[in-house]
């Protein structure tokens, strides 16, 4: 009974990503979209919060939103998957529910 969580706000502007990570359960996926994709880049204080998940939660990021913001995929934190729009749909279909963290 896994949940797909979407986060669309910059982690530097709101607490949405941290709150989402604090509520995600093992087996869930957290998908970063829109300004949420800034949370996927390495070299920031967020890496610790993500490492704290110990791999139980899958972290994914929407590639078109990354590209729009000029974030090279080489800068992503280890273990972050990129998906395209079709991959977003697949994730929504393969989880039991979707929860948006606005």
């Amino acid at each position, binding site marked *: 009974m896994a949940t797909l969580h979407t986060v669309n706000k910059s982690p530097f*502007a709101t607490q949405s990503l941290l709150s989402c990570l604090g509520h995600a359960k093992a087996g869930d996926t957290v998908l970063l979209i829109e*300004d949420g994709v800034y949370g996927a880049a390495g070299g920031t204080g967020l890496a610790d919060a993500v490492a704290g998940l110990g791999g139980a939660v899958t972290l994914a990021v929407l*590639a078109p*939103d990354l590209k729009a913001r000029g*974030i*090279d995929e080489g800068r992503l934190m280890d273990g972050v998957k990129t998906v395209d729009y079709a991959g977003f749909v697949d994730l929504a279909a393969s989880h039991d529910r979707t929860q948006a963290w606005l």
Partner: protein
Amino acid sequence: MEDGVKKFLYVNRKAPYGTIYALEALEVVLIGAAFDQDVSLAFLDDGVFQLTKGQDTKEIGVKNFSPTFRALGDYEVTKLYVEKESLDERGLTADDLQDITYEDEDDDWAEKPSILIVSRSEMADVMAGQDVILSF
């Protein structure tokens, strides 16, 4: 200071595409440039993301307005203050930002950088030295 010329600072604190603030700020700057005031732009917090290189918005269906920052020199907007702490917190350095320059009319059209990286306390001084501050 010339008569009637005021110091205007446009403060940019939002990332470029998630909200309309960044684009609106840029349009106001371009329109406001017609009034011959002493204009500066400040980029802090998520606003620093507006100036990053390599933006490509084709797949999200919105206009990529990052090239427009490079036109600001033509509008005599030549001071873009960028806060170093905001870059650091986001894992960015000055190298991640576009090259934005202007031609100095008073110095034989020499090309000079418009981006000025400043510390948080220097940014506070920039803000404190203005007549008008417009926030986005």
